[in-house]
């Protein structure tokens, strides 16, 4: 790394306001050439907004951006690219029906003849070992491969600053290592890297400096190699990490849900198929399912909730009843409840009132329907109860679901299901995108429900959440589930390997992962 006193990028006093929220409040830091600089913070801390301003997607309301010492105004992404700033977004801007080559061409500002472009692409791919066939159609690629397209796009511009926005949420641990190799190589060549993440162990492994944001404000700029994960987490969250209150000396009761050889074919050409899923959850137990995104979590939730029923009635048993072939509606009548990952559009209807949203899942168990007609008074009353019990900040049962903040809507949805007192509750990503306060409330509610004897399944990509919440843990990978393990005795390394696809259980057949290559 060169020691050059002039920073590649320097931000001072950056402020950005949106209606109702101060996204960035007087933030400043600097990045040296060849430095790998982390931008750390929870969801809503202001990382995305800050980076959008660096890349020219928005303009700051106040403050200054300096590039190589000189003040600049980054008018738009094109201007950013001209300066030498490249960005790999968390959500890719790709065109499924087009080829890799066409996708990369679209990401460039210049108009290069096809042959020349292809030669350049191959050169970059070789140099950084990001191998891809330029003539493949994007829809046939895996998520990791699609990310490579985005990286190649950015690298073709010969950037002096590369911004990576949460790049590893979609990668296996092995792919993460490969990415780190690429980034370290880039840094050694003098390119600065701005690495946005909330994954503490990655930042400790990769980054030279970390700037921590919380609630729009700058908390600290520190050296991750010196700090501990815990100290960085505390700065990120802002308080001593609270331990979840679990009742001491819990015992579990009978099995409430047994999943036996559940197999469901994937939906659509790129759906993940579930193979031979086996696990059981006892009364009072919280069962966690960990895994990297895209390994069948959504398919599993749909299969358990009944939205995608199986052919085999014995595949799922709830309190002894065989529900495998039953629909979601029928499973609810047997005592099952579920909360899918997507709050707006799946768990709730954003345009409907909170009262109408209770009808969605509670109408049968809470007798809100009689003679084909809806008893709206009952729905309203129930909605009011949920709002009060779960401290949902809303104007009332008549407020639309879409008008609630993420955390409040998630609390409402959780409350709607939990207050139906289900025997079995399956939730996916219960605190994704939710502020720390609401997340804590949701975790406590789940623990309390388990304490009353329900069986709970938590599917999550947040390993920290699962380790603090669950009693038992299994890992889903490629549509298959590992053998469950007790959280108290679990080994993080083993979990990581399982997430990456190596099953520890020697009796299991080596998984034939659908190779996209």
């Amino acid at each position, binding site marked *: 790394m060169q020691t050059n006193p002039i920073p590649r990028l320097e931000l001072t006093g*950056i402020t950005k306001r949106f*209606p109702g929220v101060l996204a960035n409040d007087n933030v400043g830091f600097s990045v040296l050439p060849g430095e790998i600089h982390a931008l750390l913070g929870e969801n809503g801390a202001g990382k995305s907004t800050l980076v959008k*301003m660096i890349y020219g997607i928005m*303009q*700051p*309301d*106040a*403050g*200054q*951006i*300096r590039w190589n010492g*000189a*003040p*600049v*105004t*980054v008018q738009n992404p094109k201007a950013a690219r001209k300066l030498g700033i490249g960005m790999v977004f968390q959500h890719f801007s790709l065109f499924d029906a087009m080829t890799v080559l066409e996708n990369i061409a679209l990401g460039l500002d210049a108009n290069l003849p096809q042959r020349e472009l292809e030669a350049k692409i191959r050169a970059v791919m070789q140099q950084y070992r990001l191998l891809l066939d330029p003539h493949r159609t994007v829809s046939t690629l895996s998520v990791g491969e699609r990310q490579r397209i985005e990286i190649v796009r950015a690298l073709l511009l010969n950037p002096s600053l590369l911004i990576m926005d949460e790049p590893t949420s979609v990668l296996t641990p092995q792919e993460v290592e490969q990415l780190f190799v690429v980034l370290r190589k880039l840094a050694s060549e003098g390119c600065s890297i701005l690495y946005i993440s909330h994954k503490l162990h990655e930042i400790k492994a990769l980054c030279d400096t970390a700037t921590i944001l919380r609630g729009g404000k700058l908390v600290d700029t520190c050296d991750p190699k010196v700090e501990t994960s815990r100290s960085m987490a505390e700065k990120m969250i802002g308080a001593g990490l609270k331990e979840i209150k679990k009742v001491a000396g819990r015992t579990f009761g009978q099995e409430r849900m047994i999943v036996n050889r559940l197999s469901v074919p994937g939906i659509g050409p790129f759906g993940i198929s579930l193979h031979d899923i086996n696990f059981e959850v006892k009364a009072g137990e919280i069962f966690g399912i960990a895994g990297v995104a895209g390994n069948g979590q959504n398919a599993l939730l749909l299969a358990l*909730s*009944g*939205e995608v029923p199986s052919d085999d009635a014995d595949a799922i048993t709830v309190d002894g009843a065989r529900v495998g072939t039953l*629909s*979601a*509606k029928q499973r*609810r009548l047997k005592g099952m409840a*579920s909360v*899918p990952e*997507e709050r707006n*559009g*799946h*768990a*709730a*209807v*954003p*345009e*409907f009132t909170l009262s*109408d949203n209770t*009808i*969605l*899942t509670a*109408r*049968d168990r809470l007798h809100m*329907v009689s003679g*084909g*007609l*809806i008893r709206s008074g009952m729905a309203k009353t129930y909605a009011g109860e949920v709002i009060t019990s779960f401290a949902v900040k809303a104007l009332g049962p008549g*407020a*639309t679901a*879409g*008008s609630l903040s993420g955390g409040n809507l998630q609390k409402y949805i959780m409350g709607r299901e939990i207050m139906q007192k289900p025997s079995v509750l399956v939730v996916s990503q219960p605190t994704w995108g939710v502020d720390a306060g609401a997340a804590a409330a949701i975790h406590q509610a789940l623990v309390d429900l388990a304490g009353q004897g329900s069986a709970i399944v938590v599917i999550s990509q947040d390993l920290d959440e699962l380790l603090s919440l669950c009693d038992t843990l299994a890992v889903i990978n490629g549509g298959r589930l590992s053998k469950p393990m007790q959280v108290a005795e679990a080994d993080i390394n083993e979990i990581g390997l399982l997430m990456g696809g190596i099953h520890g259980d020697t009796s299991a057949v080596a998984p034939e992962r659908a190779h996209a290559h």
Partner: protein
Amino acid sequence: MRIKLEKRPEPSRLMLVITPIASVLLTMLVGVVVFDALGIDGQRAVVDIFLTPLLASYKWQDVAVKAAPLIIIGLGLSIGNRANVWNIGAEGQYIIGALCAAGIGIAAGTSGGPFIMVLMVLAGIAGGSAWASVPAVLKTRLGVNEILSSLMFTYVALQVLSYLVGGPWKDPNGRNFPATAPLTADQALPLLPFTSVHLGVGVALVLPFLFWLLMSKSVFGYQIRVVGSAPNAARHGGFDSNQTVWLAMLIGGGMAGLAGALEFAGALKTINLGFPSGYGFTAIIVSFLGRLHPIGVLIAGIVLAVTYVGGQVAQTTVHIPNATAGIFQAMMLFFILASDIFVRYRVRFIPAAKSAPAAGE
């Protein structure tokens, strides 16, 4: 000074009601201006198109008779539109429904009476539903876009009509004119005494209230709304979205077929090549102008019927072609579509301020 659009947290109820009214008024205003520009007496034309049909003592019957199919088809379409199902083939379903009713009439020969009438109406509903079921199957089984498929079937229906009235169903006593033999007096629907208002108008006045009840109070109405707003949530809530598409298309087709049967058996009593009046397309405007709400559809149907009758009036008074009623109908739709923005957004005028110096200036 610039205009800023702020998304409202909830759609404005006030605007939902005001905008259709404003659209009609604006259309009248623009109409005056456009006609004057073309050298036609704008005020006279607009008055004749919009007001005369309501005020002239005998014209309201025409309005009632024209409103009936618009309202009935519009009700069916608004259910579909609420469920995000786009049935553009209502005109074809209307025609097939009328043809099925006519078929019963021909088969009945000279016998009439309530039984035959009921049979004709049922045949109309069945025919319209059946015609809509093909695009429905194509959508639920194969994912075919129902806009394109239902539209194609409209043009096929036109050919079926042309073939039948020019061939097998041509009135043998009709001097070789392509039309079906007219219904006898006891085959046609009863009329309000001393008027040309037939039973179908009564049906059109009652149905909106039934639909209102259905949409707001029943689980089916809830299902339609959920499927239209958030199909994943509908599935999560235990509603089968394929079943909903089916039902929405069948209801749309059935209503269109009902309208066709009633128009045939009540108003025209014969089918010829001029039967397709474009009601199936105008009903789409009716359902939008009525904001997909059954009572709104009732009112909008009357408004559009007024413009149809008014167009005929203006043809004789100011000598503009019949087709110009279409200009007004389209303008009302344009205005209501444009005004949607006021429902979803609040318009703010921001005075030009010295913006904070952009970073680095």
